């Protein structure tokens, strides 16, 4: 599939030595408990299981999620360090083996 646009909207901002990362992912996050009204069958689970945040190639956060996280999930975390122009990467993997990642430059004092 042509990947023109990442499923992750990503922002990283440095202030007073702490970088805050905000990520908004586009994903249905099906719990497996919703019913398809036409067939009466449960809609199969489909949710992001793991989100990994990396700074300079080092993992700063590993997030595990269930289907209890809202559709088009939002994640925010922060870490000490980070400087203007350095890269932050966020990647997700869902329970069906789907995945995506995105990178963004930290915005901070120059």
């Amino acid at each position, binding site marked *: 599939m042509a990947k023109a646009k990442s499923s992750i909207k990503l922002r990283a901002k440095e202030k007073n030595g702490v970088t805050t990362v905000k990520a908004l992912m586009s994903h249905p996050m099906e719990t497996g408990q919703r019913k398809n009204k036409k067939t009466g069958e449960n809609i199969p689970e489909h949710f992001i299981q793991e989100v990994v945040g990396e700074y300079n190639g080092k993992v700063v*956060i590993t997030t*595990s999620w*269930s289907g*209890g*996280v809202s559709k088009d999930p939002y994640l*925010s*975390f922060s*870490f000490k360090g980070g400087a203007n122009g350095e890269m932050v990467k966020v990647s997700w993997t869902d*329970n*069906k083996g789907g995945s995506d990642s995105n990178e963004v430059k930290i915005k901070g004092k120059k």
Partner: protein
Amino acid sequence: MIDVKRRVFLKGSAAAGAVVAAAGAGLIAPQAVLAEWNEAAFRSKTVADAIKAQTGTDATEESADIKIKAPEIAENGAVVPVSVSSSIAGVTAISILAASNPSPMVASFALGESTVADVSTRIKMGKTGDVIALVQAGDKVYTAKKEVKVTIGGCGG
């Protein structure tokens, strides 16, 4: 005459294509479970079981040093913003549980050394209940909770 047949053929193949696409979308892929993903914790049906599966202990301590930011009344249970932060030193993991959900364990964050103990996400809540934050630091487990009233559930169809 030829043209008409061509039209019919195109219509027919387009319809067939749609059926194939629908069948493909309905296929259930085999579940690939990641090693890091704590299956037992996320499948637990009670808060106590989930805490035990996540932390390996049921000895938890309530702490005033954990802050849960969540609305008192959530109009839409499908999207409840929750932030958990803590001033406890050496936090290695933060988990968020929704006590009244069928599977209470919602999210778990494993933090690196330089990561600040402050995470935010948005969760689904089926009905009014406590949002529980679980903070692991060293070999201790701290908890805090906050009630969120839900006016429209977020786990229905």
